[in-house]
């Protein structure tokens, strides 16, 4: 019986994040997974926070004071950046999968989407920290 330590297994999910020796397409895939997990986590926290508002006006005022703290704004910026990247990469995935031989330029599309994500995040970051 062969020892199957090298075989495919769902316990190998961590290899999605092992980018040693990997190229741009894999980085796009890895970022897509990380931003997806981040957005799901944010949604859960968001729902919990909204639940707190039902406790009354006092709870609402306390909540608003907390979220005005720069650390929270920084986390919100991460959510915005993750949302922009994840959405744009979704467009890239659709283009590459269903439009001719777009797969041959998937790296270039990734770099363009990444650049737009960084510029968009900078734009929102400046707005959020200077408002």
């Amino acid at each position: 019986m062969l020892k199957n330590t090298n075989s495919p297994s769902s316990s190998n999910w961590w290899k999605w994040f092992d980018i040693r020796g990997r190229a741009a397409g894999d980085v796009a895939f890895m970022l897509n997974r990380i931003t997806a997990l981040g957005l799901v986590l944010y949604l859960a926290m968001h729902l919990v926070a909204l639940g707190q508002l039902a406790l009354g006006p006092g709870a609402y005022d306390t909540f608003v004071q907390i979220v005005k703290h720069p650390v929270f704004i920084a986390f919100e910026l991460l959510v915005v950046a993750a949302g922009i990247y994840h959405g744009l990469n979704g467009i890239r995935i659709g283009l590459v999968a269903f439009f001719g031989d777009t797969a041959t330029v998937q790296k270039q599309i990734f770099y363009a989407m990444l650049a737009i994500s960084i510029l968009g995040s900078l734009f929102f970051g400046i707005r959020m920290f200077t408002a």
Partner: protein
Amino acid sequence: MSETKWNVTLLIYRQKGSQSPHYDTFKLEVDPDEYVLDAVERVWAFHDRSLTFAHACHHSTCGACGMRVNDMEKLTCIVPIRDVTADGGTLKIEPLRNFPVISDLAVNMASLYAHMEQVGHRAVLPLSEEPSEPGVRPVAKAAEDDYIRLADCIECGLCISACPISAASAPYLGPAVLAGAQQHGLDGNSDLLALVDCAEGMWRCHQAFECTEVCPSNVEPGLKIMQLRQAAMRQRIKHLFGSKK
């Protein structure tokens, strides 16, 4: 070959039977223009006859000598040492991932071969159906019959080793197999369509394109999977409008 000599350290993955894996170190003087497989063979010939690895043709036709070299999948018979390390550097040699290890660097690729047969991949086919890669001198067509050639895919398994989805999903057919299905064609082949148009077929691919990055031939498995998706979508749209084909 050059007169230059490099000193390199080979860090080779070892695993026999039910032993835990470990790495053995071998220091070699090499010609940097030699291939990685030459260095592995020298370890076997002069240092350790128990080292197990697969190889055959030495010219990238058989696809037997795929290994991971410094964390990247390489067909070791065509990769010069100077391309993957420097004088005084290290060559970490490991077996391909996502296939069970038989012994040391040799892996069991039976599942790949079985799936390739299942999708009807042809190892030999007319030149008109799989043109030579760009830059290769075109061959003049014979009077009546087309020339035949070996298919681009040499079934080396590098793409499956590099694929992050193949690592975590055992039932996934994998890039080489899906590229084989695309080569065969879906038109009028409902069995093949059923095999690849499913969750563990073409739709499991998450477009990391590592398969295309490491492919030592002209296959571009990532592109082939996308072409397969487009063909499957065309079939679905035809069915939607009542086509029986």
